[in-house]
């Protein structure tokens, strides 16, 4: 039994066959879209920039909603990332939008490690997806994708050039996420300065080798608009949720004594371009790039780090399984070794304790013996003394009886002189 493939052309790999009637598979894109609509979409944006550059306001303006709470203070001890998820709906499209804000970025005196929490956050999301993908029983199709799809990097409107903090951070992030640099609060820069600023920024990015996200130009329907927009990067934006009456319309704008900056006026700022590119034209491409380029790179590095290698052309299949096996055996071996070590340590401790206890016991015995001996000595002494006292008592009794006998004999013989002489003898006997 053999599985054979017939009729394969060299270039295509399959015959091109003309259809003689309407089959109906042109509804496939619709089927695919319907499935995605039922499922819902998710999109995750990371906003990186110094405190006070208008990140939250810009998000509010972009998605036309008031998102979260109060502006943050400037006295954060380190950089933290705050992430919030919102469910938005427009016509029949449900979007799960996650906005991650960098809090305290650029506020510290020593900013050497400022980029680290951000890189860690992005890696954590990749790791979570990788773990899910490597599970045996997995539910990829209902997994809530938290990987960062786009990173909006907010540049301060100094008008001169990029800060070194910006360069360092962007360099660390460019291989992990799609970076879209934007100039924040750009109503602080005049038009001519803005043009020079943009050129300076682009040239600095190029000379430092920072890869920012390029809008894709391979699809003819959007190639033209995308390539024009690529030339306008970085976008100079102004965000505002307040509305001002201009003419007879209410528009989002910032009102100054010398004039009003309209957010959606293309002559005033690039907000419309940003919204167009980020949401209306390239959202899907951003998600795809994240999955096929950044995530794959992370996955490859992580797996290689863990010791897995791909198969050689003629090596055994399932090297991943075998490496898993080897790793597992290694791990079990290590566990066993540790167990042995612990057991030995336990045995040793027990021995030591036993020896200690034996020592103590011996001491106690000795003490007991000593005390006993002492006791016996004392007893003997006392007995001796008692004996001697008993002896004396006996002698005294004997003498007493002898004396009494003599006394009675003397009485019988009668003679007070003998009495006297006896008395004297008696007295001298007693002296």
């Amino acid at each position, binding site marked *: 039994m053999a599985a054979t493939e017939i009729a394969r052309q060299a270039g295509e790999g399959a015959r091109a066959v003309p259809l003689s009637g309407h089959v109906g598979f042109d509804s496939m894109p619709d089927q695919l879209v319907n499935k*995605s609509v039922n499922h819902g979409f998710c999109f995750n944006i990371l906003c990186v920039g110094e405190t006070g550059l208008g990140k939250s306001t810009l998000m509010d303006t972009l998605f*036309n909603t008031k998102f979260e709470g109060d502006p943050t203070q400037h006295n954060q001890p380190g950089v933290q*990332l705050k992430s919030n998820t919102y469910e938005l709906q427009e016509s029949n499209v449900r979007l799960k939008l996650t906005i991650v804000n960098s809090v305290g970025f650029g506020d510290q005196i020593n900013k050497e490690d400022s980029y680290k929490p951000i890189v860690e956050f992005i890696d954590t999301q990749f790791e979570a997806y990788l773990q899910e993908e490597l599970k045996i029983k997995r539910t990829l199709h209902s997994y809530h994708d938290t990987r960062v799809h786009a990173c909006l990097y907010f540049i301060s409107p100094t008008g001169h050039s990029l800060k070194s903090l910006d360069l360092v951070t962007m360099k660390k992030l460019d291989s992990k996420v799609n970076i879209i640099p934007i100039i924040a609060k750009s109503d602080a820069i005049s038009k001519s300065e803005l043009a020079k600023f943009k050129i300076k920024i682009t040239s600095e990015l190029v000379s430092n080798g920072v890869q920012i996200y390029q809008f894709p130009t391979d699809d003819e329907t959007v190639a033209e608009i995308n390539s024009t927009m690529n030339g306008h990067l970085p976008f100079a934006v102004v965000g505002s949720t307040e509305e001002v009456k201009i003419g007879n319309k209410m528009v989002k704008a910032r009102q100054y004594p010398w004039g009003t900056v309209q957010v959606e006026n293309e002559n005033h700022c690039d907000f419309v371009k940003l919204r167009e590119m980020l949401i209306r034209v390239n959202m899907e491409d951003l998600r795809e790039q994240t999955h096929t380029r950044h995530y794959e790179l992370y996955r490859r590095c992580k797996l290689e780090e863990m010791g897995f290698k791909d198969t050689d052309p003629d090596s055994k299949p399932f090297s991943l399984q075998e490496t898993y096996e080897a790793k*597992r055996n290694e791990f079990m071996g290590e566990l066993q070794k540790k167990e042995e070590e612990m057991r030995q340590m336990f045995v040793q401790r027990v021995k030591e304790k036993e020896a200690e206890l034996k020592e103590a016991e011996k001491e106690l015995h000795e003490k007991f013996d000593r005390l006993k001996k002492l006791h016996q000595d004392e007893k003997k002494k006392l007995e001796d003394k008692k004996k001697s006292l008993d002896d004396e008592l006996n002698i005294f009794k004997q003498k007493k009886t002898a004396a009494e006998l003599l006394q009675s004999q003397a009485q019988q013989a009668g003679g007070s002189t003998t009495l006297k002489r006896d008395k004297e003898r008696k007295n001298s006997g007693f002296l």
Partner: protein
Amino acid sequence: MADTAKTTHPQPAGRPEKGAEFGYVGIDAILEQMRRKAMKQGFELNIMVVGQSGLGKSTLINTLFKSKVSRRSVMPSDEERIPKTIEIKSVSHDIEEKGVRMKLTVIDTPGFGDQINNENCWQPIMKFINEQYEQYLQEEINISRKKRIPDSRVHCCIYFIPPTGHCLRPIDIEFMRHLSKVVNIVPVIAKADTLTLEERDFFKQKIREDLRVNEIEVYPQKEFDEDSEDRMINDKIREMIPFAVVGSDQEYQVNGKRLLGRKTRWGTVEVENTAHCEFAYLRDLLIRTHMQNLKDITSSIHYEVYRVRRLNENNTHPSDQPNGHSNGVPTHEVLSHEM
């Protein structure tokens, strides 16, 4: 560090208005973006046809896709021999309709059920299907993966039941019982123009009964209905399976129109007339409404079952009991019906 996300539901101010951009964000433009991407990438579909020779498999495939896509049309010098063992032959075609490109692969199984001893006839087919899953799994676990893994997994298997009019034969039950666990099976009654309508209904009822008694789940499977809407649509389909089909790639003049059909002395059977046969329903199911669903069930259910089994195989030693996977996820106890 990041705090965990909390979900809130603010409403976007305003609805999309024509002309004025005020209030309209443009999130629904993602649908258009997805459509564009799908059109650019094109689609893939792999259909397998299984049945005894002479049941009209090649003709039906040609009729379904309105072009000469079957094996017979590709090999002009095919002798009408019945192979000694089951062979698996697959042919790929690029077809295009209204800008949508599709790579269609038809997998034919000549020799199935044609031997005198048909024991284990389903095994080579099962092996082929599992080989496709294996190929996909290998690509997926590579360190450096391709951008788009070529999908050669069988999305749908059309099983041809000969129009005996009685009930399912043992070979049919055996085959469908084993394969309904690894692939989507769509059973059809072949050459249905030999059955009258009453015979057809009776036959269908018997077949459904047999399927139920033997616990065979054919497509659309009850357990994979996602919501009540799906269930309603699929219930209607389940009442109609197996479809009684007639295939033809010849056109005849009927009532002033040129239609595909089979011309006999007593009349012309119109293939696409739903009063004559159920070909149109089959085509709508396979192509116009449920094609994406077929692919989804293959990739997220059948393939995952295979993957779980495969990854568990390497984790259990004969001497140990099954213990944890190296990343800490407990292994799934493989049930007997999954083997």
